[in-house]
């Protein structure tokens, strides 16, 4: 199943902040974690992650630190800040409301048949 672009974009910020709650990570590792969490269905262009990380850094939600990888390359690690945690909490509330509303409306309406047959 492929998830629509707009939905991926909307999920990107809370997802990245949430992953950083587990610990400091660098870009490639963040993307790998996104893949694991979504079973590979939540995918975005790898290059787009970095402008997003830079935006979060500018907004003060994450900080970055250059370190050296095992292979001896310079690597930029990102860590969530206090403001980032607050932002994440806010986003979580918003998403809970959205998910809640969707669940309620879907309980009253039958699922479209295409999805129940399970092809995507």
């Amino acid at each position, binding site marked *: 199943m492929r998830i629509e672009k707009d939905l991926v974009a909307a999920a990107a910020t809370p997802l990245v902040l949430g992953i950083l709650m587990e610990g400091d990570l660098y870009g490639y590792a963040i993307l790998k974690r996104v893949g694991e969490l979504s079973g590979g269905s939540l995918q975005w262009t*790898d*290059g*787009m992650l970095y402008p997003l990380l830079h935006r979060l850094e500018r907004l003060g939600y994450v900080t970055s630190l250059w370190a050296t990888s095992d292979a001896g390359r310079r690597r930029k690690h990102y860590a969530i800040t206090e403001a980032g945690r607050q932002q994440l909490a806010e986003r979580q509330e918003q998403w809970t409301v959205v998910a809640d509303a969707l669940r309620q409306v879907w309980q009253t309406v039958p699922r479209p048949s295409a999805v129940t047959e399970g092809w995507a």
Partner: protein
Amino acid sequence: MPLHDDLEAQIDRWRGYVQRRQAIGAADVEELEDHLREQIEDLLGTGLDHDEAFLVAIKRLGNLDAVSREFAREHSDRLWKQLVLVPDEPDTRTRARRELAVVLGFAVGAGLAVKAGLLWSAGDWAGGDTGLVRNLGLLVFPFLAGYFAWKRRLTASVLVTLALSFGLLAVVLNVYPFGTGQYSEFGSTEVLAALHAPVLLWVLVGVAYVGGRWRSDARRMDFVRFTGELAIYYTLLALGGGVLIGLTVAVLQAVGVDPGPVLAEWILPFAVPGALVVAAWLVEAKQNVVENIAPVLTRVFTPLTLLMLLAMLTVLATAGGLGEIDRDLLILMDAILILVLSLLLYSISARDSLARPGLFDALQLVLVVVAIAVDAVMLTAMLARITEFGFSPNKIAALGLNLLLLVHLLRSAWLTIGFLRGRRTFTAVERWQTRYLPVYGVWALIVVVVFPPVFAFA
């Protein structure tokens, strides 16, 4: 862990490609490259071969245009090249600070020299105000040359030559017994010397600018570029300074304080020459970082000037009264030719000499040809007048400059035609400009040194 050679080569090529994106900074390229390498290693681990791994990794990284656009959205400031005068890195910072101190030193020095000149001339030094006018350039330009002498670490022999030249010029300008004119306290040979001395001084600044390598065509062209940018930066500084002074004066006058004396005696004598040295430093600092402005202006003004010249030619051809042309017109013609020449020079200075002939080259040729036509009409009229009324120093100086400009433009037109027809390279056109420029210096030298004795210091 280094990858296989062919992969390293591919990554190198990719890096070069990404580095050309203005929105993606050096640190971002490093970050993306780390990502790419990690991805490739993982893909190699799943059994893909080198090319496949590289291609998949590149594909996952995404379309470079789209990624670059996304970077640009986040870092829009990067699309504006920023001029960093005092950088953050500690080792370059101390060097930049030392340069700033030297620049300010020379700027204040030029200010002090002008202030001293003003004080002395009030005490009737070297013939009162006329003496100051003759010497004004001498009070300022050596400081500019001094900055470049410091910056380029001139050799002792070049330094001595420059110092001697400045000294000799000072002697000539102040030892010659200039007479007074018919209508004013200025004699015409004195006015001519005062007008042409800055050209000589500028040549000396040029020698310092090119670090003594004045034979090099490329360095001469650099000096031409520098001159254009300096004029623009100086104008900008003057505008800014004017606004600042205007506001201050308005506020002071509103509270009943007259800022006039302080302004005339202290602020302007330091600000006007000092800004020249500061502008030179700004142009030096920016040269590779910010696009040159002079060539951009030539693009705008070449077509407009062409229209202006065509209108002039029409008026001259239909008016018919060429006999009425007076001496001032010859000076006006010189001004127009200098304008056309600068347009030519600055677009040549910015042109890629390997590019094929284009529409703009043709437009430029038309401009030069029309300018020559206008000048030819005027010259015939002037020569007729001179044979009728005889020579004067002013007429000869104006006529001489006119002829020099005419030769410059004629040869440029000829070479440009050759270039447009594919018979010559653009380098030939470029060379002609840089080779011919010293002729103006020689002419200025003649006007300053030879004219006064020949015309009995009239």
